[in-house]
């Protein structure tokens, strides 16, 4: 609740007025039976047509005033609910921008997206309904009882008994069925998974000729689902008949006790009509209340999930600013990046992903990093722009400890092309400018040229202004990847990291890219991560990783001599008789 409150506070007036007006409307609803009783007891009995006309006029008037109240209430409720949800959404989005990589890994982007969309919508609906109904329904229920008391205390006792009995039935059944509905949901998840499996594995299923068994298995799970559905259905189907019976018993009690009161002259028949009306009103409102509670508990669950994300604080802190204060002259240090006994273990992972890595790289050098999956290549390069903090050891960037850099400055120095290709909807230009807002036309073309993307961009009818659809759907995998390389180049970073960035490129393009990267200014340090020896063999130094440990450091030739793992990788790709250069 604490985060929602922040924004609900801005709508304090609305969120107080909405339920108040709703209550006002309810009051008119409660008065109707009284007016009707008056018509019967006074108007008809006294044969007073004027009185009857006036009473009906009052009914119409009340209906109109009630409508106005209701409109006002709906308006304020909508404003408050939507306004607060909008605020909450803003807060969540801003919060996500600040999360560190490690928190994002833990939460996962699909979770974040559901929180942003459907969960906040649930909160909005719940809040809206809550503001409108949470006072109204109880007000009518108890109001009806109070009105009954004003008519006759003895008969009102019937209400005192009926209301709790109805509540027990409604809320009891709800409490009984809600875990069962969860079970149904579980069974539904099973058949969803089953159906998905059948589709994704269609080739294997057919290859092994298991179509019939798979259908049978699905049908079995499906049967389980239906069994569960029918069971819950039978229980929740009790709700209507039970409440209906209770209300009718209440009415019978009113008739029975009422007839005695009429006989003794305490009450008139109009009063009985009023009491019967109140009894029916109670049922309607209690059912509404029950539905309200379902919606609200769902909304509360959603709110809880949203707040869970908001409660996740990033563990990484950056210094305020390093722009002023100590500036580093480019000549001061020759060292671009150095790792000093660096280890890294991810949150929630048992084993270390990197252990005890040390190396040092001079400005302008090209470093190749090679190793199998899970050997820690990406982890290592992700430490350089400080996406994660090393668990132990120290990383220096341009001679300064990495924690001393402020976020903006650091990310400006380091350009990274990530393994997962990600372009954004907009134009080719807007994607390039993302890296560097001030880039000139010439700079963009130059970046495209090095990234081997010039040709395909030139071929597009709108050139740089060619539309990029969401996820880059209208570009091929290779084109997307080259665009992300260009995006990093436009930034003119001092340290450029290509994390397995040529996976979607064919061999010739990959080679051309590597050649053109040499035309970058001589002080740009390049890290090339790859699984293939051909991509990195010409690097100044090659770091071989195996299970997070450094297994070799040197040039291609040196490593072929000294590093068994490197040789193994090389031979698995080239064969034992592979051409030696």
């Amino acid at each position, binding site marked *: 609740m604490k985060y929602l409150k922040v924004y609900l506070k801005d709508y304090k007036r609305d969120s107080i007025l909405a339920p108040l007006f709703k209550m006002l409307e309810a009051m008119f609803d409660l008065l*109707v039976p009284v007016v009707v009783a008056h018509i*019967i007891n006074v*108007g*008809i009995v006294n044969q007073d047509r004027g009185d*009857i006309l006036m009473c009906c006029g009052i*009914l119409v008037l*009340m*209906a109109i005033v009630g*409508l106005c109240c*209701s409109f006002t209430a*709906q308006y304020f409720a909508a*404003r408050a609910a*939507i306004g607060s949800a909008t605020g909450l959404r803003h807060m969540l989005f*801003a919060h*996500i*921008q600040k*999360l560190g990589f490690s928190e994002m890994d833990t939460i996962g982007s699909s979770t974040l*997206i559901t929180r942003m*969309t459907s969960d906040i919508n649930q909160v909005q609906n719940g809040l809206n309904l809550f503001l*409108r109904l949470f006072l109204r329904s109880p007000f009518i229920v108890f109001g009806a009882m109070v009105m009954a008391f004003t008519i006759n205390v003895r008969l009102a006792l019937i209400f005192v008994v009926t209301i709790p009995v109805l509540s027990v039935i409604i809320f009891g059944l709800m409490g009984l069925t809600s875990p069962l509905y969860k079970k149904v949901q579980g069974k539904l998840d099973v058949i969803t998974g089953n*159906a998905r499996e059948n589709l994704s*594995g269609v*080739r294997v*299923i057919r*290859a092994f*000729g*298991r179509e*019939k068994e798979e*259908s049978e298995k*699905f049908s079995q799970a499906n049967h389980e689902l*239906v069994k569960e559905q029918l069971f819950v259905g*039978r229980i929740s*189907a009790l709700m209507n*008949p*039970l409440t*209906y019976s209770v209300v*009718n018993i209440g009415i019978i009690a009113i*008739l029975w006790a009422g*007839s005695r009161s009429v006989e003794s002259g305490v009450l008139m028949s109009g009063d009985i*009509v009023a009491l*019967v009306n109140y009894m029916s009103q109670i049922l309607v409102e209690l059912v509404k209340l029950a539905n309200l509670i379902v919606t609200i508990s769902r909304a509360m669950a959603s709110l809880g999930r949203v707040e869970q994300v908001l409660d996740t604080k990033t563990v990484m802190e950056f210094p305020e600013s390093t722009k002023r204060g100590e500036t580093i002259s480019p000549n001061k240090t020759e060292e671009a990046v150095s790792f000093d006994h660096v280890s890294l273990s991810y949150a929630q992972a048992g084993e270390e992903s990197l252990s005890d890595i040390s190396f040092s790289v001079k400005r302008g050098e090209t470093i190749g990093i090679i*190793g*199998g*999956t899970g050997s820690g290549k990406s982890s290592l390069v992700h430490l350089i722009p400080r*996406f994660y903090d090393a668990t132990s050891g120290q990383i220096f960037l341009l001679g300064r400890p990495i924690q001393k850099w402020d*976020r903006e400055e650091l*990310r400006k120095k380091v350009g990274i092309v*990530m393994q997962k290709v*990600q372009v*954004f909807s907009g134009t080719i230009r807007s994607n390039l400018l993302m*890296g560097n807002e001030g880039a000139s036309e010439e700079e963009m073309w130059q970046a495209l040229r090095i990234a081997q993307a010039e040709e395909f961009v030139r071929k597009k009818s709108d050139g740089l202004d060619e539309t990029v659809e969401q996820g880059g759907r209208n570009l091929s995998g290779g084109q997307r990847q080259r665009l*992300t390389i260009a995006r990093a180049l436009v*930034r003119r970073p001092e340290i450029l990291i290509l994390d397995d960035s040529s996976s979607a490129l064919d061999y010739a393009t990959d080679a051309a890219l590597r050649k053109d990267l040499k035309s970058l200014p001589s002080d740009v340090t390049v890290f090339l991560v790859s*699984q293939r020896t*051909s991509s990195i*063999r010409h690097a100044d130094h090659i770091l071989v990783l195996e299970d997070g440990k450094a297994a070799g450091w040197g040039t291609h030739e040196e490593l072929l001599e000294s590093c068994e*793992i490197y040789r193994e990788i090389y031979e*698995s790709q*080239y*064969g034992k008789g592979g051409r030696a250069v």
Partner: protein
Amino acid sequence: MKQKKTFVRVLRRIRPYSFFVILSILCGAVSVAAQLLVPIFCGDAIDYMLGIGRVDFEAIERLILSIIGVTALSAVAQWVLAACNNRVTFCVSRDLRNEAVEKIQKLPLSYLDAHPSGDLVSRIIADVDTFADGLLMGFTQFFTGILTILGSLGIMLFLNPGITAIVVLLTPLSLFVAGFIAKKTYKYFGIQAKVRGEQTALINEMVEGQKVVQAFGYEDKSLEEFDQVNERLREVSVKAVFFSSLTNPSTRLVNNIVYAGVGLASAMIAISGGITVGELSIFLSYASQYAKPFNEISGVVAEMQNALACAARIFELTDVPDEVPDREGAAEFQSKGQLSLSHVFFSYDPDRPLIEDLNLEVKQGQRIAIVGPTGCGKTTLINLLMRFYDVQEGSIKIDGKDIRDMTRHSLRQNFGMVLQDTWLKAGTIRENIAYGKPEASIEEVVEAARAAHAHSFIRRLPEGYDTVINENGGNLSQGQKQLLCIARVMLCLPPMLILDEATSNIDTRTEIRIQEAFARMMKGRTSFLVAHRLSTIREADVILVMKDGHILEKGTHESLMAEHGFYEKLYNSQFGG
């Protein structure tokens, strides 16, 4: 028109449950009738309480007994009604789902490849759910709603036609108001849906790409963009939600006016003795009850239309023609491993010819390596061999027999297939390895796992062979999954193999193990290998060089290098450095 057709088809699915439908209709009628009677009994009872000393207790007691009887009857009928409706709805949706999944097993691969599986899953799950909701609502509310309206009308007419006229004349007003607001709201909801869609797209993109956003210091810009859409959404949502929430109060206003009108008219008539006070109360309770189903029914109709739309989407799936059935007299077949392709033509898209006039002779035990850049159509060949797709011209023969003359089942039994896309079932490791031979003993399973070099890692898992892996083996590494897939084929060990070498996802050590497992499997078996590794390629008896779906060259490593063609270029760019 289409809707009507769908409706008829839905009715046909319901037919097997006619008994429950009839019972449901009967119970609906009973419960509505009983519910309508209660206000009458109430009214009558009130008429027996005229004042001091003028109360007819005997008559009232009789009426109370009637109310009890009617209530009990109605309660039972209501419960049976709901139970019947549940049964019909859930059983019909169960049947639809079973039918859809059975259909999937028979659909041609071309259909499945062309349709994203997410869409098909949503048809089988979400659409059937919506359909069931609509059907249930229709059953529960539509019929009883109509009965309630007709019943109330009839009783009111019987009591006093004049007052009934007021009710009947005024109610359309309520429908009109509701319709008017609905139309207005519809517009705003349309805009809201559009803006919300925009926002969701933005959220998807930015959150998915969050790491890039941060790497490029784009956070502020991205928040700015988001806030813009967020604000627009707020504005339109307030309107949409506000207008839509007007429907209920507005119809309530009309109902209240009807109520006042009925009150006025019946009171005036009561003065002149035309009706009794009890009858007046009956009228009032009908006046408020009678209009309610109208509002509900309009909702139900919308819901049912939605349900029909969903049903249509499901039927669309079940209507797709099955893949061509096995030929008449297609036989079971046990191959020795000799295979020939002659003059094979095939393409997915008639405008883009793919495989043209492919000829290939494979002797028993030969190794065929298929090489080429990514996306060159290597999988097409696998598709044809396994008859996931059929050749369009020419023929594929195994041991001299056309593969279309054998059952698909037995053809596929002759092939062992390991794909790069390592599909595993949710279930235990043992079930997965024994997938092609469920009756295999645990010894056989372990033996296969040993042969596939998978035994050592399986042993280290918490429950060994009984370890449950989740859907698509999420808790195993890529390499481990591949080893399991190999073990799965190892257990059946058919005479021919189709192997897709993994490219990049596997570390060197596991890779070497997989190589060994592959080699062991291939010994003496005809095998087709989608190859990436030089060693595999060089050891092949025949190399097929593919590009853009065409087979460019064919031969051994030496003969192809001597040709100085595409193969040489490919080889040099890949392995030359």
